[in-house]
């Protein structure tokens, strides 16, 4: 039952398994939905969805499948089964359309309340499955009620329709904010940064940890007299270089960037973290503070010399430079260009560092040729939107070998 619902959920990217779907059938069997559409919505959601970030996807799939069953009426699961004729949809569509024209004049004038009233009456009287008739509730029929039918002004019971009508609970889409592609907060930042881990015991640090296996072995070999073996603790070997765009078009995102900055520095498990700032694009100087004041800077060349290619680089910026800021060797209106255009400096960064990602708080979805600079930079560095999803993808990108 409801196999279409199952497929629709999977299409929306929910990893519903057969086991969970069978659990839902069991719940229907035990009459836990009590023949109410709203109860069915909640029961199927609590069984099939395991994260609030997926509620929105579920809502969309549910709306698609049970589109206009929006009013709270007692529809028995028996009746829903009669109406579940998704295989016949195509057939019904053609047939319905041909009937539509004749019937339109006749029945579309019934007003909505009248239909709802009649629907309830007929619901009470109906005791068997009806398909193709013109009185009872059933699929492919000509009455005002049922699924896959041809009456334009009628009410649908389950099934699919092309006509618009909102389902109250879903209509609000109140779980949209929980989607994991929304812009994120500090705690989630920190969790994402935990992905950047590469444990290594081959570091230059003292042997401070008790090696239990080694101690047991040595002690046994020593005839039972205790002999302690120490080892180097395993530490995260990841080094991080954070380059942040500051000021100008980035001001609306300052709270977000602040959070990102905090998260990086709270994640104290890195071997080293360096942060520098730039204004709009990277040129020959990198600023030490977000205020980007002249003089308070380091040479970008100095960075190349001192921070080796094993640093993982995260560039944060909106990549919204004007074309001359990116391509002209006099395009930096705040400081020195260093004889190269911003684009060339970015190329140098790509050449020097093995792992670079670009996080963009206002990246356009998909292909956006009108954002010239953004499109160009996307070709140079993998660019991700600054959201939970994007940050996780970016961290994975930094850790994997292509």
């Amino acid at each position, binding site marked *: 039952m409801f196999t279409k619902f199952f497929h629709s959920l999977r299409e929306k990217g929910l*990893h519903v*398994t057969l*086991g*969970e779907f069978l*659990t839902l059938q*069991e*719940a229907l069997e*035990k009459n*836990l939905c*009590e023949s*109410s559409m709203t*109860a069915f919505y*909640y*029961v199927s959601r*609590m*069984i099939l*969805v*395991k*994260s*609030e970030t997926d*509620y929105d996807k579920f809502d969309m799939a549910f709306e698609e499948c049970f589109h206009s069953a929006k009013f709270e009426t007692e529809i028995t699961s028996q009746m829903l089964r009669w109406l579940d004729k998704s295989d016949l949809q195509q057939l019904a569509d053609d047939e319905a359309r041909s009937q539509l024209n004749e019937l339109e004049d006749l029945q579309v004038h019934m007003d909505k309340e009248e239909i709802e009233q009649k629907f309830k009456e007929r619901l009470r009287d109906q005791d068997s499955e009806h398909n193709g008739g013109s009185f009872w509730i059933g699929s492919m029929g000509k009455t005002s009620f049922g699924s896959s039918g041809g009456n334009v002004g009628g009410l649908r019971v389950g099934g699919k329709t092309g006509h618009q009508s909102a389902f109250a609970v879903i209509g609000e889409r*109140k779980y949209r904010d*929980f989607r994991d592609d929304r812009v994120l907060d*500090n705690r989630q930042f920190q*969790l994402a940064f935990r992905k950047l881990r590469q444990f290594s015991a081959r570091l230059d640090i003292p042997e401070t940890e008790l090696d239990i296996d080694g101690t047991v072995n040595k002690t046994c070999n020593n005839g039972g007299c205790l002999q302690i073996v120490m080892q180097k603790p395993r530490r995260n070997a990841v080094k991080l270089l954070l380059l942040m765009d500051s000021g100008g078009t980035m001001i609306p995102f300052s*709270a977000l960037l602040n959070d990102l900055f905090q998260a990086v520095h709270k994640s104290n498990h890195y071997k080293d973290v360096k942060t520098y700032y730039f204004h709009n694009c990277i040129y020959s100087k990198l600023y030490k503070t977000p205020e980007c004041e002249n003089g308070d800077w380091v040479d970008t060349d100095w960075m190349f010399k001192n921070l080796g290619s094993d640093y993982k680089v995260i560039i944060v910026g909106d990549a919204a430079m004007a074309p001359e800021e990116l391509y002209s060797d006099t395009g930096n209106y705040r400081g020195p260009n260093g004889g190269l255009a911003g684009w060339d400096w970015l190329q140098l960064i790509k050449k020097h560092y093995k792992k670079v990602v670009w996080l963009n708080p206002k990246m356009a979805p998909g292909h956006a040729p009108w954002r010239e600079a953004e499109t160009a930079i996307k070709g140079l560095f993998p660019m991700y939107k600054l959201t939970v999803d994007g940050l996780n993808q970016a961290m994975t990108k930094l850790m994997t070998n292509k």
Partner: protein
Amino acid sequence: MGEEKTGFRGSGDYVASEELMASVNVAIALKKPLLIKGEPGTGKTMLAEAVAKSLGKSLIIWNIKSTTKAQEGLYVYDTIQRLYDGQFGEEGVDDISRYIKLGKLGEAFESDEQVVLLIDEIDKADLEFPNDLLWELDKMEFYIHETGRTVTAKHRPIVIITSNAEKELPDAFLRRCIFHYIDFPDDALMEEIVRVHYPHVEETLLKNAMEVFYGIRALRDIRKKPSTSELIDWINALQLGGIPADQIKSALPFIGVVVKKDEDLETVRHNANSL
């Protein structure tokens, strides 16, 4: 959900939404663990207490910490005690079962009547922790190697698990659970919750306090959004302090009860006019 008069219906001091009650009842009917997520302060832990109370069952709480191992919930073999006893020639040292101490899960299985088992903040533990409990929660039994005994649940406990979403839980584990996300209560539900705690709260005081509370939550720059328990504390403070209702918005008395961080206090003061 009308019919299930026998199921969980909330309790005297715990206000649950319809969906939450439904999820408890579905979890009981389908014999699956109920996984509860939600913002801090939305009453995840209190739910288990309320369920136990309203169904008249006793509650066993297993608090999870970052160091908790799945094994501890089943049983612990106290070898050190046995060694001590052996040195002093205590009676019954050869009886290993004397040194097997059942954990919280084991306790729930061995109970003579059905209990509610709360596994609190499961996400605090190791990533592998939930996976280690799959078999035990599915089959409701475990095996004690030292004595060769299998502990089987006499009555399947009602298992409620809470998570703060600090870590992703493994899929295999999630598939076996009924999931419910506790929404932050809306105005109406919040009013009901406050009234459960303070039935005689003054009308305008409650109204003004709630307006300020939701106003603070809606501020964009707020770092830690105040939760239900903070509102309740605040209303208590306002009542005890005898603050006139019309001063709440202008003076923001005892605002430190609601907002805990210095930066947030600053933000709230800054935006005091728009609250």
